C-alpha cells in the first residue's frame, strides 16, 4: 500500500534526478534515526492516550502501536525496519534486565525463609503445570513443551519495572513482585539453557551442539557479564557515588555487555541480568547501589515495546492456538496465585495473592527467548513455539493491567502518578 502511494513521488524523483545530479537515489528505506523517532512518537501518542483516557499502563499503548503499525496489520513498520531497530530494542531490554538483576536481593531470602518457599513454589508449579498443559493438552513433543514452559514460566521484568515506576508504587507487595520477578527470571534462564540442549538432542545428529550450546548460553553470559560488572565497579569507584558520571558508567558498561553478547550470540537478556545480579552481589561498598538508570531509559522502553508489538505474528493467529494460549495463561495464573496463597511470609494471604497477580505479565523476554529457540530449528520451532508466543502476545496487553491492578489494590500507588514515568 505504501509503495503504491509513493509511486508518483518516485517517478517525479527519477525525472528530477536526470537533471539534478546531486540528488541521491530515491530513499526506499527510512533512515534508522527517522524510524527511531517515528516509533517513539507513535508509541508515545498511543501510550499517553490510553493512560489519559482509560488509565491503562502506557506499556499497553506502546505494544498496541507496534501491533497496529507492524507487519501483521497496517504494515507501516516492515520486517526490514524491525531488524533495523533490533539493536535499540536489545539495548532497552538489556538496561531493564540489568535493573531487575540489580534488584535481586538474595539476603532477603535468607532473612525470610517463607519467601524462598513461595518463590520455589512459584517456579516449580509454574513450570510443571505449563509443561503438563503443553504436553498433555496441546500435544507438543516433550522437548518443545519444556521449551514453552521455560519461556513462559517467569514474569516480565521489563513490564513489572515500568509499571511500578509509572505508578510510583512502593510497599511490600511491590517489593515482592520485583523480587519474585527477578528470581523467576533467574530460574527461567537456567531452564532455558537446559532446554536449548534438549532441543538440540532431539533435532540434531551432532551431540556436541546439545552439550556445548547450553554451556555457551549460560557460561557465555557469565563470562561476558562478570568482567564487565567488575569493570563497572572498578571505574565507578573512582567517581562520586550517585554522580552523573556514575550513571554514564553504568549505561556505558551495560551497552558494552549488550554489544559483546550480540557479537558472541549469547542472549542479551541473560547476560545483562547476570551483570545486574553480579553488581548487586559484589558491590559490598555500595559503589553503584545508589546509582539509578537515567530517566531516558523510558525512551528506549517505548521503542522496545513498539518493536515487541510489531514482532507478534498476529497474521498466523488461529482460534485454536488462541484458545490454547489462553489455557496456558489460565494454568500459569493458577500456579502463580496458588504458590503465593500457600506461602509468602509475613504478609496477609490477600496481599500474597496480589503478589501472585502482580507477577502475571509475560512479555519482551519471553518473545526474545522464543525467537532465540525458534531460530535454532526454524522449520519446527516456529510452529511449536506458536503457543508461548501467542500467550506472550495476549499477555502483552493484559499483563501490565494485571500488574497495575495488584499494585493499586494493595494501596501502594500514588493517587496522582501523572508526573511519573518520565514522559507524562
Amino acid at each position: 500500500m505504501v509503495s503504491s502511494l509513493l509511486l508518483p513521488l518516485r517517478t517525479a524523483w527519477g525525472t528530477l534526478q536526470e537533471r539534478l545530479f546531486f540528488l541521491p537515489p530515491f530513499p526506499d528505506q527510512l533512515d534508522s534515526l527517522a524510524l527511531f523517532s517515528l516509533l517513539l512518537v507513535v508509541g508515545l501518542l498511543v501510550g499517553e492516550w490510553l493512560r489519559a483516557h482509560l488509565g491503562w499502563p502506557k506499556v499497553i499503548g506502546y505494544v498496541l502501536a507496534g501491533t497496529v503499525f507492524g507487519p501483521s496489520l497496517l504494515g507501516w513498520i516492515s520486517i526490514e525496519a524491525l531488524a533495523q531497530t533490533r539493536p535499540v530494542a536489545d539495548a532497552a531490554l538489556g538496561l531493564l534486565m540489568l535493573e531487575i538483576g540489580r534488584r535481586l536481593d538474595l539476603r532477603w531470602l535468607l532473612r525470610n525463609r517463607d519467601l524462598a518457599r513461595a518463590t520455589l513454589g512459584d517456579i516449580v508449579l509454574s513450570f510443571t503445570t505449563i509443561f503438563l498443559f503443553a504436553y498433555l493438552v496441546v500435544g507438543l513433543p516433550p522437548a518443545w513443551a519444556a521449551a514453552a514452559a521455560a519461556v513462559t514460566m517467569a514474569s516480565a521484568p521489563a513490564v513489572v519495572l515500568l509499571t511500578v515506576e509509572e505508578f510510583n508504587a512502593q510497599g511490600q507487595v511491590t517489593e515482592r513482585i520485583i523480587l519474585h520477578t527477578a528470581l523467576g527470571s533467574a530460574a527461567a534462564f537456567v531452564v532455558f539453557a537446559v532446554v536449548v540442549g534438549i532441543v538440540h538432542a532431539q533435532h540434531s545428529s551432532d551431540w556436541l551442539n546439545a552439550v556445548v550450546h547450553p554451556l555457551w548460553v549460560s557460561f557465555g553470559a557469565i563470562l561476558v557479564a562478570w568482567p564487565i560488572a567488575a569493570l563497572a565497579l572498578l571505574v565507578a569507584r573512582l567517581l562520586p557515588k550517585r554522580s552523573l558520571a556514575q550513571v554514564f558508567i553504568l549505561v556505558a558498561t551495560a551497552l558494552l555487555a549488550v554489544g559483546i553478547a550480540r557479537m558472541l550470540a549469547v542472549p542479551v537478556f541473560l547476560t545483562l541480568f547476570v551483570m545486574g545480579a553480579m553488581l548487586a552481589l559484589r558491590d559490598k561498598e555500595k559503589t553503584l547501589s545508589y546509582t539509578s538508570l537515567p530517566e531516558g531509559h523510558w525512551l528506549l522502553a517505548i521503542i522496545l515495546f513498539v518493536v515487541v508489538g510489531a514482532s507478534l505474528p498476529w497474521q498466523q493467529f488461529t482460534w485454536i492456538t488462541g484458545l490454547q494460549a489462553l489455557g496456558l495463561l489460565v494454568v500459569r495464573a493458577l500456579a502463580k496465585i496458588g504458590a503465593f496463597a500457600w506461602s509468602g511470609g509475613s504478609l496477609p494471604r490477600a496481599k500474597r495473592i496480589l503478589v501472585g497477580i502482580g507477577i502475571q505479565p509475560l512479555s519482551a523476554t519471553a518473545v526474545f527467548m522464543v525467537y532465540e529457540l525458534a531460530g535454532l530449528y526454524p522449520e519446527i520451532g516456529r510452529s511449536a513455539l506458536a503457543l508461548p508466543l501467542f500467550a506472550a502476545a495476549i499477555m502483552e496487553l493484559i499483563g501490565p493491567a494485571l500488574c497495575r491492578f495488584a499494585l493499586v489494590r494493595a494501596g501502594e500507588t500514588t493517587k496522582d502518578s501523572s508526573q511519573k514515568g518520565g514522559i507524562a
Partner: protein
Amino acid sequence: MTAFTGEFKQSSPLTLGVELELQLLSQRDFDLTRAATDLLGSMDYDGRFGEIKLEITESMIEVSTLPRATVDGIASDLDGLRQTLITQCSRNNIAICGGGTHPFHHWPDRRICPGERFDELYSRYGYLAKQFTVFGQHIHVGCTSADEAIWLTQALAPYVPVFIALSASSPYVDGVDTLFQSARLNAVSAFPLSGQCPELKDWAQFVEHFHFLQDCGIVSSIKDLYWDIRPKPEFGTVEIRVCDTPLTIERAAALAALAQSLARHLLRTRPAINTGLQLHVARYNKFQACRYGFDAQISDPLLRKQIGIKDWLGELLDQLSEDARELKCSTWLDLLKVSLAAESNDASWLNEQQARHKNLNDVTHAAALLFASGATDKLGENKQ
C-alpha cells in the same frame, strides 16, 4: 479524637514514658520508604514493651514505652521495642534508624497513613503534613496533680535549649547540610500552634485558656497544641517534645534521665519562675540551640546577659547529680556528661560520617547500623 474534659489523670511522681518516632528505610538505597502499615499489619507483638503505632506518613513508625519508675525500665522497654522492630523489619527487607530528619528524602513522595486523624491533618495542613516527616523523641514525666503539671511545664521551659543541644541529630535536610544541629524543629515551627506554653497560674487557667482557643475554633484537642512542652492530662504527665530522635536508644534513655532528674530538682527546689520574661527570649534561645548545638549562646532574661550553653549545661549536670543518684539514673546522666565533655552529639556524628563517606546514602546506612547494633561504647563517641 478524645475531647478535652478538663480532667487531669494523676500519676505517680516522676514516672517516665518515652515515645520515639523512627525512620523506615529501603534496604536498597536507604531512602525513606512506604512501609508502616504493612509492617504493623504483619506484626505479631503482644505489647509487652509498650506500643508500636502509625505516625502521620507511611515512612514513620512510633514506639512508646510503658510508664516506668526508672530510666533502667525505660531503657529496657526501648531495647525490647528496638529488637521487635528490627526482627520484623528484617523479614520485610526494611531498615530502621533514628535521627531527627531523613538526610535526603524527597518529601512530596511521602504517603499519608490511612486513618481519620491523619486524613484530617492532611486536609488541614496540606503539604506541611508531608513535610512533617520528621522524627522526635517525646519524654513524659508523671505529675501528682494538675497544678503541679502546669507549674512544671513552665519551669522546664527555660531548659528547652539544653534538650535540643543534647538530642540534636538532624543536620541534613533535602540532601543539604543545613548548618543546623537540629533542623527538625524548623519543620515543626511552621505549624500555627507550635511554640511555648503561655504564662499560666494554675490548671484552672490552663483549662480557661484551652476553652478560649476552642471557642475561637483554633483547637479541638490537646493534640492540637504543638507546644515545646505541654501538659498531657490523659496520661497525667508533662510532655517534653523538643528532642530529635537520637541515633541510639541509649541516648534516648539518657535524655529521659535528664528529664526525670531535672523535674525532681525543680519540684524539690521550687525556684521562682518568670514565664512572661522567658517568652521574650524563648524563640531566640531555641534557634541558638538548633543552629549551634553546644556552641549556642543562651540569653538569660533575668540576668540580662548571654551565657554559653556548654558552661550552663556543665553546671546543671553537676547540680542534678544528687537527684540522679536518688532516682538511680546517675549512669545514664554520666553518658550526657561524657557527650558534653567531648562536645559531641548525634549531629556531629552524622557530620563526621558525611565527611568520611561524602554520601548521604552511606551516612543513613551507617545510622541504621548504629541503631541496630545498640553498641555505643561511650555516648560521646557513638561507635558503629
